[in-house]
């Protein structure tokens, strides 16, 4: 009994345990529900799963099911980011416990209410549990914003190398605070119109309405909501990586104001989509450019640091190009978290800008189904690349060392990039191949995409199994992690 209690305490009260549970649930949900579409469906796995588990797939409810599925996964990811933030950023212990426990109940209720509602008959009791879960997460977010309030004397920077105001208030903390506030507002930006106009019944996927010239308030707010929520999850992830890499110095001092202004302007831009759609796009471009510039400075700092440390390990102060690259990539986990941000520019930001610039000239001359592929691929890649960054960070927290660290890190980086590169070629294929001749391109890109995703999922499964086995050991890693704080991985605070 005591053994169970101590493990329960680890999994549901310690930061690393909470992150582990949330990642495991994300993995299980992705693997299980992923079998209902794509190649798994084609291979007949879908029908076996549907029959075995008694899943009720009403055709007219498909969009609603997907929306709930996205939300449950997103809530788990938001919980993971929250656990990281509450441990990385100074706050009172009672605040940390209250936020973590509230968001844990929240995302578990969202998952265990939402998924049965969506896939096993529309039980409104389950829907109530799902909504209660989302509400708890919102409440946890409000508590987080309160805990992050930056204008307290005790949270002023002690080390002047970190970005701060003239009076010493911590700009990184202000960035976290700003992101939490605009995230709460952006959550309402989806929830309120969704309830008011559709009462939750008129579900649609945003990518299906992009060509409608006169969009309803509901359509505009839902499109804005999904874009800003994904962007803010990515910005929060970037700020977490700033802490992980112990970002400081002059670049930190430039980057933090950019992250603050960028996230606020970007959010305001998406809220403006409803009343002033034309202007809103310009504001969104401005905000995202500013925020991305902040992320670029993190990448520069981080790569410089990795190269410097790598060379120092070999007793070198300066090295040639190849020594520099070798030093940069020697640790895939630390290199990967920022490399994936760079890669995001090729598969998400770059594609997005190209499509926006050439929309009328090229993409709106294609059938809608071809344009839709880009839209769907675009946000799936953004979401999953963000997830891989968090996963690489967690792998470091979980204590992966030696060859396992190298194999895991490089598997995630190489195969996720292979998958998303292939998906990008697939979604843009009409640029270089006509419909009648496309099948080999479709086959190759789908194959590479599937191989990439399968390897990443296998790497994740291996990590989870390793941690599961560890839980059966009396003095496993978990027994030390139960009291560990994430700050221990930040070199200087």
């Amino acid at each position, binding site marked *: 009994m005591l053994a169970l209690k101590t493990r329960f305490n680890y999994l549901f009260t310690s930061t690393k345990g909470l992150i582990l549970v949330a990642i495991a649930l994300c993995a299980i949900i992705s693997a299980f529900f992923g079998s209902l579409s794509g190649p798994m469906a084609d291979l007949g796995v879908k029908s076996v799963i549907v029959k075995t588990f008694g899943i009720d797939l009403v055709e007219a409810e*498909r*969009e609603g099911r997907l929306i709930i599925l996205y939300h449950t996964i997103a809530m788990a990811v938001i919980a993971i980011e929250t656990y990281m933030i509450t441990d990385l950023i100074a706050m009172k212990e009672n605040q940390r416990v209250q936020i973590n426990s509230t968001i844990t109940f929240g995302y578990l209720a969202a998952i265990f209410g939402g998924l049965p509602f969506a896939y096993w008959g529309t039980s409104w009791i389950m829907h109530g549990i799902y909504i209660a879960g989302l509400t708890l997460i919102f409440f946890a977010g409000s508590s987080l914003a309160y805990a992050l309030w930056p204008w307290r004397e005790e949270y002023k920077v002690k080390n002047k190398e970190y970005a701060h105001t003239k009076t010493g208030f911590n700009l990184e903390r202000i960035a976290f605070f700003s992101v939490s506030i605009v995230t709460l507002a952006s959550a309402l930006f989806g929830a309120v119109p969704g309830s008011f106009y559709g009462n939750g019944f008129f579900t649609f996927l945003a990518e299906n309405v992009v060509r409608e010239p006169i969009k309803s308030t509901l359509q505009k707010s839902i499109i804005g909501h999904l874009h800003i929520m994904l962007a803010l999850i990515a910005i929060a992830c970037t700020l977490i990586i700033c802490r992980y890499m112990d970002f400081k110095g002059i670049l930190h001092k430039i980057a933090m104001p950019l992250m603050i202004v960028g996230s606020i302007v970007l959010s305001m831009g998406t809220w403006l989509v409803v009343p002033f759609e034309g202007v809103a796009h310009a504001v969104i471009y401005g905000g995202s450019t500013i925020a991305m510039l902040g992320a670029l400075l993190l990448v520069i700092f981080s790569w410089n640091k990795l190269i410097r440390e790598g060379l120092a390990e070999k007793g070198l102060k300066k090295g040639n190009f190849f020594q520099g690259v070798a030093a940069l990539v020697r640790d895939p986990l630390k290199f990967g978290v920022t490399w994936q941000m760079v890669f995001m520019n090729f598969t998400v930001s770059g594609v997005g800008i190209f499509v926006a610039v050439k929309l009328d000239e090229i993409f709106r001359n294609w*059938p*809608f189904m071809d344009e839709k592929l880009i839209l769907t691929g675009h946000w799936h890649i953004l979401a999953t690349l963000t997830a891989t960054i968090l996963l690489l960070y967690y792998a470091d927290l979980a204590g992966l060392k030696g060859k396992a660290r190298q194999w895991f890190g490089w598997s995630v980086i190489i195969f996720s990039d292979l998958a998303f590169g292939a998906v990008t070629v697939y979604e843009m294929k009409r640029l270089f191949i006509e419909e009648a001749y496309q099948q080999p391109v479709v086959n190759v890109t789908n194959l590479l995409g599937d191989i990439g995703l399968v390897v990443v999922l296998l790497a994740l499964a291996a990590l989870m199994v390793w941690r599961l086995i560890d839980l059966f050991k009396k003095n496993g890693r978990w027994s030390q992690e139960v009291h560990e704080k994430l700050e221990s991985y930040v070199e200087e605070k």
Partner: protein
Amino acid sequence: MKKLTLLLISFIFILTACKPVDINAPAPVYDTGIDPNTWAFIPSGEFFSGQFNFETKIDYDYEMMVTHVTNQQFAEYLNEALKDGYIKIEGNEVVGYYPGDEFHDGRHEEEIPAGDYIHIPLDDPILRLDYDGQTFSAQTMWANHPMTMVSWFGAMAYCEFYDWRLPSELEWEKAARGSEDTRPYPWGETIARNNANLITSRDPFEDMSSFGSRTTPVGFYNGKTYDGYVTLDSSSPYGIYDMAGNVWEWTSNVYEEQHYRYLRGGSKDVYENYLRIWVRNSSIPTYTSPAFGFRCVK
């Protein structure tokens, strides 16, 4: 060394998947027994439209072609219409006059002024018609397949030549769903591989390692067995075939502030969920595709 061999094998495997596509690879010829010259009667009355089942009324009777317009039918039309001067050949295109749409300067709207517009491209190898400089004829292998590579202008001109018209989106939806229930597919609640020509149908006309999915003859999914390929009878409640899958079907609506035209029914290239009755595709009206066809109403 082992790793290198594995990499090389994977690379060769991927390269071999890139062999050139023979779009004119032979296809089997089947008589489906469904006459493309027949029409189905659709009585006036209420039906459920859209994903959310809005009660909708069409207060007139109309008839719809039981199948897509075939290559054979379109070739015959081209010969008649060319002779009448209804259409003409300009360069490598068959073109015809369209009186234009009212322009509202909507967001992303492009003006469609009066003028000649493409009906079909003559130089596209995927076109299943032959033209000897005098006469059009359907390629024998594809004669009873849906006419594809036809623009919205071409589809509309065909229907209007015979004093018919393209169906509106609502007319199409009622014809596909019937008036009794809220079924997602023309034949009922669920879909199997052999209900329709879709990307997973594994019908005798496709080769997913090469040219991919191709059209099936009109009315193919009628319960018959073709060389061991068993089909399910998948007509709509009014006895109309291929209302899901095979080719997307042009519809007639011209909406304010947009130049796009809408297509319904899904095609040979998409998954099940795109074959649901309420799903819409759209395109500029000049676009021609091996996955776009049409049928008429009167």
